[in-house]
């Protein structure tokens, strides 16, 4: 369909205020936090499931691609348009529909911002556990689509472990409910399949999640190291000694200096690495575990372990971590965040490998990651105006992903595949494995109009990353 009649139809469904069509407005939707691709033909802001259904049917009739979008903080190009079409922003579907503290559940629209849900139930002593570092901006719908993790998902599990039910608009406009408030419903676990499907199987219009009780006690520690190797060894030792902290994060010296300059969290400028470790639970358990962890750090040549003495100090430690990407964005014109997973015991050798890759391609690589899960986020610094450097960045990132795969890990732990890594899927999946995934996709999305070009290899660009590596958010 031509653009003008399409906009007319969209306006008829949505009203004028809920449709963007001017080029200058549309430009903002070329991006997510990773990349910029095409300009959408229109952006619409439904407020009800009914509107979503009408939009989906219209798009199906017109054979126009649809890309669902939350807050656009995604880091794999999931919410950007690959070949034109309509962006359906769920940002205005942000009602919390039900809070049932006794059964520890909440039912929300997809546009609810992650922290807003936790805030809404804080008075009752509850919170929503998955906490991506972007939680002040990203939406629960986006979290569901990416199966997002966060620092505290080490102990409590990622999004899929906290989502019990979904309402979903399928590509033919049918609305289904999967799961519900209970831990089990008869039949196949469609909820489990849809979580992490990156908006390619349906648009999520309602989500039922589990709420958790806030723990009675929290202890937050920063362990400071003179050698990176000692920090990574500490991580291995904590895991293998059976201690499960609520969070176990690591930043290398390069990263923490950038963070320190930006947030003044109190990380020592001259150290080689820090671990940010948090334990939670019953007071008795927390003080014991904190002691055990200090002992492990001690055995691994820690320079010092600082405990947060006040809630403010705790918040400051976390602020440093949660704003780390932004802090690096201040010192480098661009950066490329990677997301790979390895078995946690391979951490020390993997860090050495990353360093070697940095040397090989003459790149600055900062390391910041969910160390307890073995989920790495190397940040490759570059200047997008320098074409040669940009190409080296992509090559270096691919090598790091290749190494993750060789070690028995994964090419993404939480940021998703999107358009960034779909051509890398063969690193960890055989053709048969991929074929069955294609089959699932075409069952739900036979016309391929839902978020096209994402997740699975398109075969168009064998083994190359098509993403324009964008500027750091």
């Amino acid at each position, binding site marked *: 369909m031509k653009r003008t009649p399409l906009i007319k139809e969209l306006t008829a469904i949505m009203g004028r205020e809920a449709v963007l069509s001017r080029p200058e407005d549309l430009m903002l939707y070329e991006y997510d936090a990773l990349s910029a691709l095409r300009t959408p033909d229109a952006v619409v802001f439904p407020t009800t499931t009914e509107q979503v259904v009408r939009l989906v049917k219209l798009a199906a009739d017109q054979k126009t691609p649809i890309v669902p979008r939350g807050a656009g903080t995604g880091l794999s190009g999931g919410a950007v348009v690959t070949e034109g079409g309509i962006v359906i922003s769920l940002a205005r579907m942000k009602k919390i529909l039900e809070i049932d503290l006794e059964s520890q559940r909440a039912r929300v629209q997809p546009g609810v911002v992650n922290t807003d849900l936790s805030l809404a139930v804080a008075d009752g002593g509850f919170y929503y556990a998955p906490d991506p570092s972007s939680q002040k901006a990203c939406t629960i719908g986006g979290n569901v689509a990416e*199966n997002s993790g966060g620092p505290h998902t080490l102990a409590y599990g990622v999004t899929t472990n906290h989502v019990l039910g979904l309402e979903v608009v399928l590509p033919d406009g049918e609305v289904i409910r999967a799961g519900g408030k209970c831990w089990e419903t008869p039949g196949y676990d469609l909820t489990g399949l849809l979580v992490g499907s990156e908006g390619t*199987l349906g648009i999520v219009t309602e989500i039922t999640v589990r709420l958790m009780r806030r723990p009675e006690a929290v202890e937050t520690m920063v362990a400071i190291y003179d050698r990176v190797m000692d920090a990574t060894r500490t991580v291995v030792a904590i895991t293998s000694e059976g201690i499960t902290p609520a969070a176990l994060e690591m930043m290398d010296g390069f990263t923490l200096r950038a963070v320190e300059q930006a947030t003044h969290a109190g990380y020592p400028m001259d150290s080689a690495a820090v671990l940010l470790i948090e334990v939670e639970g019953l007071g008795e358990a927390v003080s014991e575990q904190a002691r055990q962890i200090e002992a492990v750090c001690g055995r691994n040549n820690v320079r010092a372990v600082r405990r947060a003495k006040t809630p403010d100090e705790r918040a400051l430690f976390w602020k440093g971590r949660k704003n780390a990407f932004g802090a690096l964005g201040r010192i480098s014109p661009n950066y490329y965040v990677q997301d790979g997973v390895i078995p946690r015991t391979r951490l020390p050798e993997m860090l050495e490998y990353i360093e070697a890759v940095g040397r090989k391609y003459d790149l600055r690589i900062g390391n910041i990651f969910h160390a307890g899960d073995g989920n790495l986020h190397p940040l490759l610094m570059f200047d997008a105006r320098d074409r040669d450097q940009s190409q080296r960045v992509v090559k270096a990132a691919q090598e790091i992903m290749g190494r993750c795969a060789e070690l028995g890990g*994964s090419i*993404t732990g*939480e940021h998703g595949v999107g358009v960034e890594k779909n051509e890398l899927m063969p690193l960890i999946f055989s053709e048969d494995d991929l074929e069955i995934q294609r089959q699932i996709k075409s069952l739900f999305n036979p016309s391929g109009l839902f978020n096209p070009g994402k997740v699975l290899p398109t075969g168009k660009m064998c083994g190359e990353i098509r993403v324009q590596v964008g500027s750091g958010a």
Partner: protein
Amino acid sequence: MAIAADVVRAGFAGIVGESQVLYGEPACAGLRVDGRLPRCVVYPTSAEQAAQVLKFAAENGLAVIAIGGGSKLGIGNPPQKYDVALCLRDMKKTLHYEPADLTAGVEAGTTFQEFQDLLRRDGLWLPLDPPGRERATLGGIVAANASGPLRQLYGTPRDMVLGMRIATTEGKVVKTGGRVVKNVAGFDLGKLLIGSFGTLGVIVEVNLKLFPIPAERETFILSAGTLGIARDLRRRILNSPLEPARLVLLDAEASNLIRPVASLDSAAREPEIWVEASGSKAVIDRTRKDLEELGRAVGAKVQLSDQEGSRASWRLIADFSNWFHVTSPESLVLKGTMPTAHCEEFLSLAQQEAGNEKVKVTSITQVGVGIMVLGLVGSNGANPMVPLVTRLRKSLEKLGGALTVIAAPVEFKEQVDAWGTPGSGLKMMQKLKAAWDPKGILAPGRFVGGI
């Protein structure tokens, strides 16, 4: 058209070898499903063989039921057809085991017990207490997403499976997920297989997340007096900072069955809440203190069970759905799932409705999870059971829950669907089934909505 017996013989022998296929009554007797006997049982020794068996069966229209230890074959509708038992008992290799990483991968026929024995040496475990664990295999546990009261703290196989390999009716072995604890590459197909009861494909390998065994455990029993008090206790415990490993409500009938095993004196004539605390000594002491305080507030006594007694009791509690039916084959065992807020309300309703029909209820409820196992015994045959279960199912569905049949005489299962009302996702489920098993040979008719 039925396929000739000699073609079947030659086909299976060609895949797994003659000695790995057994025919006829004595060999298959233990593999009956709802009274039906398969023609033969096939024992593959590799993932590829299992896939080839499925392919051959699909090409020849033979209905296959995958079997691990056979501990949960009672779950589901009677099969429409049952020709071949695909038994994974000879696939029990440990594929990788990384105690320091807290991960392992095993073939699906590995028994739960063998696996726990392996882990225990390193102070690790898979924190599950599913019914039938003496016989159960990991593949079967995952296919049934089976769990027990430990679910309160640790969840179910769904929360522990990192990846798997699946044999398909196309004769392929496909992988989903991986070996690491965090992974979002590709669609999470494993979720479809977990709890699919062998109706989509056969799980041949699983990778699992492992956990350290807690230092100590202690069991506390709170007498509840009435279901109203039980509700009050549940609310207080779940609203406290305590993190029990298990938390169940036994009605008076269930307490009477369990208490002797725990070597606790006199029979309880009232519902009880059983709590297991785990962790360090300090955590357990703290739990005791808090429970005593909580109990005092509602007038509930707190009793302690000795170590041996509580271990035996928890085994019995976890295995309730299994032994209850075995000891009285006329009984029904049902599983209700519900929002936790409705546990006591539904139990009271069930007791009342059953009482009207002179049916005795014995129940164990995971009140922090919202899962209730009900054993029903009638005094005049199966007659009142059909309308009773239908009514209970309706009431529970109104509360947002579901009532499934776990074990029942075949005559009952022929009249009442095992799973209940399928939701609006049924069409999608049927499409998935048709894609994975186009010939409909995997446990036909046993699952939700005729799948």
